[in-house]
């Protein structure tokens, strides 16, 4: 730990007030989302607790505001603050899981391709190439559609979350694979790997224990930048109506619903989820940006 605080990374972190601020904001977002069941004033998923007569209450500072609903209520009488906290939870869950999924897949395949080379490399990289030419949102739409079509409608809601995670995750692995492959190609010829090979360690062990740790830092950068993308992709899918089910609204779903109230005067239903999403993605992107610059000494 102490080593970390003395590292260049920490030093560069403390030198950038924007980064510190975005780290704090990101932390608040994540904490609020993770602890939503504890912190949120209401449980928006508990149908029996909704009071339709409380619908369309403005935020607490509005003339008809109600202290029990700090950010107002939506068309069903759902507390906006709670809905946003729970929604951010879903968005973050999808974002993190999708990134972990594509990182794992991409790193594994990249390592294999770079370390083994030859035919494995050619085939894997060709697939990655092809997939890279398709915009990831379209890949996500396709995968989402196929899985939905293949499974009976009744099970959709239960597995919708996994489908979205899978769709977004699968659309992003090539970036990781390419980067890892590139670094592996370099590492493979270094002496420590050659030495490990000479003493007869199995390839898998060399890859996992020796090569992997040395190719991880660019992966970290891409993963951070991808988190923002994954959250936005989920929002877009939900906006197009093929994302998470409305019974478990994410920020994207909330924005889609809020869109209907753009001109109606109930601005809080539209604005707050959008602002929450932008703040969350922006802070994550700022962190990723800083991380990239900090880990890439060439740019300093």
């Amino acid at each position, binding site marked *: 730990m102490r080593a970390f605080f003395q590292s260049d990374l920490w030093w560069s972190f403390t030198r950038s007030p924007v980064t510190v601020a975005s780290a704090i904001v990101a932390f608040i977002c994540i904490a609020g989302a993770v602890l939503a069941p504890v912190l949120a004033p209401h449980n928006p998923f508990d149908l029996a607790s909704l009071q339709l007569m409380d619908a369309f209450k403005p935020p607490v500072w509005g003339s008809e505001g109600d202290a029990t609903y700090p950010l107002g209520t939506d068309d069903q009488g759902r507390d906006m603050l709670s809905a946003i906290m729970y929604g951010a939870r879903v968005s973050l869950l999808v974002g993190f899981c999708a990134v972990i999924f594509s990182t794992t897949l991409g790193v594994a395949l990249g390592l294999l391709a770079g370390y083994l080379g030859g035919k494995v490399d050619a085939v894997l990289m060709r697939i990655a190439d092809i997939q890279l030419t398709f915009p990831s949102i379209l890949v996500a739409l396709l995968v989402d559609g196929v899985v939905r*079509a293949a499974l009976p409608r009744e099970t959709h809601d239960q597995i919708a979350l996994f489908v979205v995670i899978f769709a977004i995750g699968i659309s992003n692995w090539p970036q990781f694979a390419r980067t890892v492959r590139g670094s592996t190609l370099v590492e493979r010829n270094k002496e420590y790997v050659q030495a490990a090979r000479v003493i007869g360690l199995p390839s898998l062990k060399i890859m996992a224990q020796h090569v992997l740790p040395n190719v991880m830092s660019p992966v970290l950068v891409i993963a951070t930048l991808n988190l923002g993308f994954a959250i936005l992709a989920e929002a877009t899918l939900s906006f197009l109506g093929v994302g998470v089910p409305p019974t478990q609204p994410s920020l994207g779903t909330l924005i889609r619903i809020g869109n209907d109230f753009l001109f109606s005067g109930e601005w809080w239903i539209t604005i707050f989820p959008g602002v929450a*999403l932008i703040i969350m993605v922006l802070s994550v992107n700022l962190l990723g940006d800083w991380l990239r610059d900090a880990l890439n000494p060439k740019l300093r």
Partner: protein
Amino acid sequence: MFSFIVSRLLQALPVMLVVSFISFAMFAYVGDPVAIMLGQDFTEAQRQALITDLGLDKPFFVQFLSFLGNAAQGEFGLSYRLSRPVAELIAERAPATLELALCAAIVALAVGVPMGVYTGLYRNSWLSRFFLTFSLVGVSLPTFLIGILLILTFSVWLGWLPSFGRGDVVRLGWWSTGFLTWGGLKALILPAITLGLFQLTLIMRLVRSEMMEVLRTDYIKFARARGLPNRAVHFGHALKNTLVPVITIAGLQLGAIIAFAIVTETVFQWPGMGLLFIQSVGSADIPVMAAYLMMIALVFVTINLVVDLLYYAVDPRLRIGRGKGH
């Protein structure tokens, strides 16, 4: 050269096959065209007759094979929703999407490249920081929100620009263009900005990092040492060298623009292929959806092929492992 082209074409073929299978399978079970075509009043006999006539009672693979055979001839059948040949519908909508995509690409390049050059040259200036923050905000905003906000500002509040549609279009043979009328051009502005914004930030960041890398190279240092003016160094040497990857990425991004047009066209009611696609999803219009996806795939495969060939022409060494990806 010839064998290279052939091998690339052979690689494209399975891609098309897979996409066509997916595009067919994807919607085979979603929605029920029969229910939509029959409307509110019908008898069971009418329903059965329709199912038989549409071939929906045949096994899945028989349906798929007949679909494939027809697709190869550009024959996608009749749209369930509009009772018109699908190929005709898509041809009718293609100009709208392509003009929009072109304008979005122009916006992205015309604004993104200068911003990228500037931020690359003056890394720590106040304006550069602003540009970078702006680009981050741009990346962090979902496309649909940008579109709605633009409509709210420029159509409803200010009343300057139209909020939907293509405005006045002029027909040139089978192509319809919005470039020739004032109304058509005005209608292009908001959707093009909405669609181009994401690519704009992408290109800006790409140019910036390429510039920064090129400026560090020896020959730039050498050029400076020779006493060439900054202007000549920056634009004659540095920018020129960053343009190859930028153009490649921009080319590849053209596909992304066409795909993202789905969202933009929905927000602006832009009568292009993306809107056609979304409307078809709503009414389970399988022929249109399948044709759209296959056409998009064809566009991507073509773009990819062209980019590959260009690379090949420029530098044969790059045949495997294309330069910088993104």
